[in-house]
């Protein structure tokens, strides 16, 4: 792999990282609006308000960048970057199509992805603590508690997919996929997707940023571009979680069309899942903190363990 090739792949990942979350955000505006009997943004850009998020970006860039007087200045300013960048690195290793259509194939891909996504949490904790604000601190605490409880079922569900494929590489897992994995790994897919949404603090798991209780949790004190970075990291997170669910459980580029159009399937499945994420936001009310914890420990973890056992049994049965 020469330098130009590497550079090109990095730029492609960066472009995806900068555009796809915006597309998801715009979809969220429109889908939510129509589900609630509204029109959503209609003016910016002319055609159905397609440039609304560009306008939002310009607005964020113009705003004054304020750091509260009592805040821990450097950590406060560093937090958005720590929260955002991990998702970029994850996008680099997600396989899009067959025959090396991936930013950079990593041998222990699943581990890399889960590990790097865990680092983003530290950014949110930094934001919560460094803001010197009670609501931020509470938001940070809730974030930490939520992420620690949902990390376990997520890792277990991913382990089930890795066991089924017999490899830790994301490309290898998609390669090993067969259609009957769908019923076989259905529980794992549910657990992974649900805990993924919980890790992103999307509704109905948005207790850490519950606006009616603690304003906006860890992000309360942020303005301007730094706040936009946190928002972007949420939407990039949706993209990453949906893409990972696609790759691990929905067969990635496998579909009726020839292999050369495989990337289309990956993107289609990813956006279908992103639509489900938006749908869930409009459908379910926010879970209470104790309900959140109970759901993780008494529903998701046992389900993930059940899936692991099921995977093991069938795997042994097949190989004989």
């Amino acid at each position, binding site marked *: 792999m020469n330098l130009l090739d590497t550079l090109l792949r990095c730029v492609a990942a960066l472009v995806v990282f900068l555009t796809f979350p915006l597309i998801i955000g715009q979809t969220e505006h429109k889908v939510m609006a129509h589900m609630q009997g509204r029109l959503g943004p209609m003016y910016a850009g002319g055609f159905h308000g397609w440039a609304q998020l560009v306008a939002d970006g310009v607005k964020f860039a113009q705003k004054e960048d304020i750091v509260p007087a*009592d*805040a*821990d200045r450097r*950590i406060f300013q560093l937090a958005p970057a720590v929260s955002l960048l991990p998702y970029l690195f994850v996008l680099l290793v997600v396989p899009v199509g067959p025959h090396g259509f991936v930013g950079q194939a*990593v*041998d*222990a891909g699943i*581990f*890399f992805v*889960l*590990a*790097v*996504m*865990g*680092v983003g*949490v*530290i950014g949110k*904790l*930094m934001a*919560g*603590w*460094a803001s*010197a604000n009670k609501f931020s*601190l509470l938001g*940070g*605490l809730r974030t*930490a*508690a939520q*992420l*620690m409880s949902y*990390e376990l079922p997520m*890792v277990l569900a991913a382990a089930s997919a890795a066991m089924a494929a017999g490899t*830790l590489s994301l490309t290898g897992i998609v390669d090993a996929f067969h259609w009957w994995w769908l019923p076989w790994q259905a529980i794992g897919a549910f657990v992974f997707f649900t805990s993924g949404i919980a890790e992103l603090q999307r509704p109905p798991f948005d207790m850490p940023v519950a606006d009616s209780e603690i304003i906006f949790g860890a992000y309360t004190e942020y303005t301007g571009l730094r706040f936009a970075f946190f928002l972007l990291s949420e939407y990039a997170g949706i993209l990453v979680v949906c893409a990972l669910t696609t790759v691990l459980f929905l067969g990635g580029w496998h579909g009726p069309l020839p292999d050369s159009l495989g990337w289309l399937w990956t993107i289609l499945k990813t956006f279908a899942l992103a639509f489900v994420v938006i749908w869930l936001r409009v459908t379910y009310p926010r879970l209470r903190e104790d309900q959140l914890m109970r759901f993780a420990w008494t529903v998701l973890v046992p389900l993930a363990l059940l899936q692991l056992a099921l995977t093991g049994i069938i795997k042994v049965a097949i190989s004989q």
Partner: protein
Amino acid sequence: MSILAAAGSLAPATRGFLSPTGVEIVFVLVGLAVLGAAVISVGTKQLVHAALWLVVALGGLAIEFLLLTAEFVAWVQVLIYLGSVVVLVLFGLMLTKAPIGRSPDADSGNRWVALLVALAAAGTLVTLVVDAFRTSWIDLGSGGGSASVTGASLFRTWVLPFEALSVLLLAALVGAIVLSRSRQAAVPKPRPGKLRAGKPVGAARAAKSPSSERES
């Protein structure tokens, strides 16, 4: 060690140490950064900064693993230490409302003893490693620390220590649960009829163990 053995042979030195390759230079530089971050982490008077410098030190260690081609261990290091242990530490610090700025009581009276113990431990380890390898040269081929190699050596060669460790961890877990439960059982539950106005429910409990609640 079998990971290293699988990666390359322990041949006697055929290369000089005075013409380092790029990887070796990076290894030393990252090592210096890790050392610096670790020293700051111990020495700083700002509690949360200490935890964040720990992030730098542990992340640097993961890079060192990567440079040694131990890819799997590097990601596990990030997943467990950065993603879980440091988050747990930060969680604890936030629960105790760690102040922004310097904590006046951050200095322990034991620091000189701690320094002595740390130096002794580091000296022992460095002596051990230097004595074990001397001038032998390990060729690090790519893929030597991949998941399959690590898994094979862990579950073929080192399965007994691995299982013993997991039993030890399980014992610690059970012990922690037992300890936390027995303390709760010792506190009698207040009956609704006995409550008087102006006396909070947890008052008797808080008076009994003022320190234990602050610790948790």
